[in-house]
């Protein structure tokens, strides 16, 4: 589904991703983990095209999209939930959702009802400004917004940051449900082990801009955790 081949990325002078190789299979639930600042967000942004890849290739569904523009990616089926949510603060909740209808994948011209079924709060809040919502509500909105695109892959960057426990559970259930019922590929960046274990079936551990360990989630043992996730 998503494949990175020796991808390098730099911010001005400092290189963040080093010869990054990564393969994510269709229909899988993958969790990317690593300490602060190892480049997880950078990696996701490269996949989304929000940051240019310096060298190396990135292909999605077998197609090389290294040079494709950001706008193309939702159309080939990527939904993105960024770290910090990036809700449009001055738009209403409804307008935030409607924006996704612009994507050609989404045939329907109204917001699909099942989004509201997954996140009932949003229905009550349709007319409020996105920026006024509390953190958890914004997170739900961000996921819902990505779902309106009708994506094949859902990329989430630390979706639980600042979310109340029962919503975390809700998000977990939603992700599992989407994966189960729609076969949606889930790519998740997550720091919290319990959640990562509950959602991910595969894991990739990052360190200094490289994947240094991967495998099935069950293989993620204390030793690895101690080595790569501890401070």
């Amino acid at each position, binding site marked *: 589904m998503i494949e990175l081949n020796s991808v390098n*990325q*730099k*911010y*001005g*002078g400092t290189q963040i991703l080093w010869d990054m190789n990564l393969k994510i299979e269709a229909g899988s639930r993958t969790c990317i983990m690593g300490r602060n600042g190892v480049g997880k967000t950078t990696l996701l942004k490269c996949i989304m095209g929000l*940051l*240019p890849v*310096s*060298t190396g290739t990135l292909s999605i569904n077998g197609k090389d999209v290294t040079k494709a523009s950001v706008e193309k990616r939702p159309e080939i089926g990527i939904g993105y939930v960024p770290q910090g949510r990036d809700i449009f603060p001055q738009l209403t909740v409804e307008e935030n959702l409607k924006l996704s209808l612009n994507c050609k994948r989404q045939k329907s011209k109204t917001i699909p009802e099942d989004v509201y079924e997954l996140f009932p709060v949003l229905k009550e809040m349709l007319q409020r400004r996105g920026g006024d919502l509390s953190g958890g509500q914004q997170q739900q909105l961000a996921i819902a917004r990505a779902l309106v695109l009708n994506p094949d892959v859902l990329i989430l960057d630390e979706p639980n940051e600042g979310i109340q426990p029962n919503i975390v559970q809700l998000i977990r259930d939603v992700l599992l449900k989407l994966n189960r019922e729609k076969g949606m590929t889930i790519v998740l960046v997550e720091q919290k082990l319990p959640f990562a274990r509950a959602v991910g079936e595969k894991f990739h551990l990052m360190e200094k801009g490289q994947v240094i360990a991967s495998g099935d989630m069950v293989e993620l043992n204390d030793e690895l955790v101690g080595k790569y996730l501890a401070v």
Partner: protein
Amino acid sequence: MTSLHFVVTTLFVATLYVSFCNLVFEPGSALHVSTYTVTLLGKYLCYALLALSVDLVWGYCGILSLGHGAFFALGGYAMGMYLMRQIGDRGVYGNPELPDFMVFLNWDSLPWYWAGSDSFIWMAVMVVLIPGLLAYVFGSMAFKSRVSGVYLSIMTQAMTYALLLAFFRNEMGFGGNNGLTDFKDILGFSLQSDTTRIVLFIITAVMLAIGYAISHYIVKSKMGRVVTAIRDSESRVRFVGYKPENYKVWIFVVSGVLAGIAGALYVPQVGIINPGEFSPLNSIEMVIWVAIGGRGTLYGAIIGALVVSYAKTRFTAIMPEAWLFALGGLFVLVTLFLPKGLAGLAPQLIAKFKRSDSAKAADTADTKSEVKS
């Protein structure tokens, strides 16, 4: 060598050179620097000081003032009033008290705000006080009520525009559209003599150096860092315990005073001050000097003012009908290709060698960090 040393030394050497060449070599000698050039340079240096004051508030504190011309003009008017009074009974109507324009508009006595205008000391105080006071009043009103961003910019513009209209009026007692002109001498020295010009030029250079040193000190001090922090996130600064409004007001006042001094030095050298100086377009031009030179570097502001003024002088003479194309083009090109202005040219060239393929990444990163400013 710090930029401070560099700027002060350059100024020192250049001033010395120019004065020496003007006074020592005969006109006609290849080394002679004409009085025309000296006056021109003097004017440029005034602009440079003005640009410096704009950079101080804009480059470091994020206050985009589109009304700095007001401070400049007020300083200029204060000096103009003094010079006007120096004319004494040598005016066309021979009135020892009243400036000519008052005589022929039938004023019978000086308005109260002209009181003391024949004293150099008093007017020198005014040069500092009036722009400073305006900056203080305007600044404390605006910053205390947290007017910021474009709202502030447009209000500064409204301020200078209102002053423009007011000074146009003959009733204001500042000579209306014709302004103050026909000056004869300053502190008893004829404004037309070369020596006076040289001295004025040197004083301007010295003031610029002092202005630079002050600004440099401010921005390098902790205050400078607070001010930069205010530019980044004013509200966050509050929660750290600083009062951004006070910092803003005072840096605005310092800047206003510097601009006023620039105006005061400008008037005797160009020989006229009139309401045109309040024109909003002038103030925009000042901002442009800073942007061209590179904002937030101080010396960039100086470079910008000098380059743009020189370009204007040259262009208007060599291509009087097309110079606006050249100037406009210059503005566009500098913005597009030198995001950090002329001052950023050297670092940019160096950086160019360092990065080859990841050029684009840097751009996006640059853009990101600049969104805030």
